């Protein structure tokens, strides 16, 4: 745990001299964050957070180059440690070729981030957010690999609708997605006796429409995402038939104010097979959040959100089938590259973020948390 801080400092010093290097057209960017989490009751996100934990580090480096006016290639390497999740292995976050035929049509191929709702594809880019944790009812940090990216491709573009009707941005995609072998779902399976050595995965496809309304700052959008998942372990298997996630969202920015909200529905019927036992796991997750923030100055940004998830397929009076989180956040930008954040969480329910292995004595239904982070991005 303690060795993470020197690593963070070292990366900052090394990258501090880079400052978005551009070597004959090649662009190099990166970020690194180090976080601290303290919780009043349960241990959260596989960390020993009830005694305070620094085991939360994130970093990435991207390299890209424009080969022609229309063709750009790039790769981003990502490493994270979140309690017992992640680790020292460096993963390819995305690696793609992007051919933009014109401003109305382009396509990307390779490993690409999956657009889903407002923030799915950008949830790792901590430097752009006020929040330390995005609303967990939708952007679950421990299980993000399930939806984060796919190997395949996407088409994208923008269609002007006229001066009085705004613009329409579209994206459509298809490919194969896999779970992170060091991520939350695989850990939960392992805790249940299903230890995967090859990553479960499945086909994904979907599309996103985003309307930039004539009212300046207002964006409305919707995503439909279809995914399936299959995996085989020595002790059994997981099978999730194709299911559809529907996401509706809106954001509005005016001056120093920012507001956003989303609603997702995730209905699926997973079937776990462990030895002779066949265990159906029905899920009907209804998730939403509403957030608002105000920028007091160029350096100081404060905000709050409420995040809500309930699994309608279970007994919704049980804390394990819901999660409600009131959050207050503050961010201070020391300069264009360094920033600090602090965040308070008031959590009700245990439906998200908790693991039996780090809470062997059971879970209390409510918990308060304090998170702090320093970050560097160039």
């Amino acid at each position, binding site marked *: 745990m303690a060795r993470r801080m020197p690593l963070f400092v070292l990366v900052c010093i090394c990258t501090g001299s880079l400052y*978005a290097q*551009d070597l004959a057209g090649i*662009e190099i*960017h990166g*970020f690194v964050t180090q976080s601290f989490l303290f919780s009043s009751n349960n241990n959260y996100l596989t960390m020993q957070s009830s005694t305070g934990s620094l085991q939360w580090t994130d970093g*990435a480096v*991207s390299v*890209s180059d*424009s080969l022609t*006016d229309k063709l*750009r290639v*790039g790769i*981003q390497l990502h490493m994270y440690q979140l309690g017992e999740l992640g680790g020292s292995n460096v993963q390819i976050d*995305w690696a*793609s070729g*992007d051919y*933009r035929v*014109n*401003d109305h049509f382009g396509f*990307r191929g390779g490993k*690409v*981030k999956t657009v889903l709702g407002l923030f799915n*594809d*950008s949830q*790792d*880019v901590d*430097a*752009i957010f006020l929040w330390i944790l995005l609303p967990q009812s939708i952007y679950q940090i421990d299980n993000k690999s399930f939806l984060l990216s796919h190997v395949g491709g996407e088409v994208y573009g*923008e269609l002007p609708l006229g001066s009085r009707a705004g*613009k329409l*941005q579209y994206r459509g995609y298809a490919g194969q997605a896999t779970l992170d072998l060091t991520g939350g779902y695989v850990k939960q399976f392992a805790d249940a006796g299903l230890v995967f050595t090859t990553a479960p995965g499945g086909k994904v496809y979907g599309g996103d429409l985003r309307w930039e309304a004539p009212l*300046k700052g207002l964006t409305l959008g919707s995503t439909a995402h279809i995914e399936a998942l299959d995996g085989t372990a020595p002790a059994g298997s997981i099978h999730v038939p194709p299911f559809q996630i529907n996401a509706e969202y809106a954001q509005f920015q005016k001056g120093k104010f920012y507001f956003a909200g989303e609603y997702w529905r995730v209905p699926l019927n997973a079937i776990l097979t462990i030895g002779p036992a066949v265990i159906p796991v029905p899920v009907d997750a209804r998730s939403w959040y509403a957030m608002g923030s105000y*920028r007091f100055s*160029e350096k100081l940004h404060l905000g709050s959100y409420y995040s809500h998830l309930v699994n309608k397929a279970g007994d919704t009076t049980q804390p394990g089938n819901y999660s409600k989180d009131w959050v207050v956040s503050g961010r201070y*930008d020391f300069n*264009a590259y360094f920033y600090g954040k602090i965040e308070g969480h008031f959590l009700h329910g245990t439906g998200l973020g908790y693991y039996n292995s780090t809470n062997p004595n059971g879970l209390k239904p409510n918990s308060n948390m304090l998170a702090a982070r320093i970050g560097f*991005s160039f």
Partner: protein
Amino acid sequence: MSKTRWLILLLGFIGCWSAASAQDVVLVANQGVRISEIGAADLRAIFIGTKTRFADGSHAVPVTLKGGPVHEVFLKNHVGESPDQFRAQWRKAVFTGQGAMPRAFDSESALIEYVAATPGAVGYASRISPQDKVKCLAAVK
């Protein structure tokens, strides 16, 4: 072309050879850029990366200053964003594989030199002189 547009163009060219007012900046482009005026919406779209071509179809290469009052005035007047909003938008594009950040310069002279040497380049400065081998663009509503 309407009288209004001619007037805007004329005022734009006059502005090129003198110091820009404290409230605005001079838009500069490579001399190979065929247009002489640019719509406000197109200019904004080019600098936030949703548009990569000028109205005549030629490729646009936006460049910026790294910071300072001229950068802030340009972003406020022509992009409608603060420096941190602009930076966040580009960071999102870069770290999700959806775009490449505009090249940024420490000084106006370095920016103008790059614009002069790079086909399709478009940027801004507080003023330019007749010795600068760039052309001036007029922003129109």
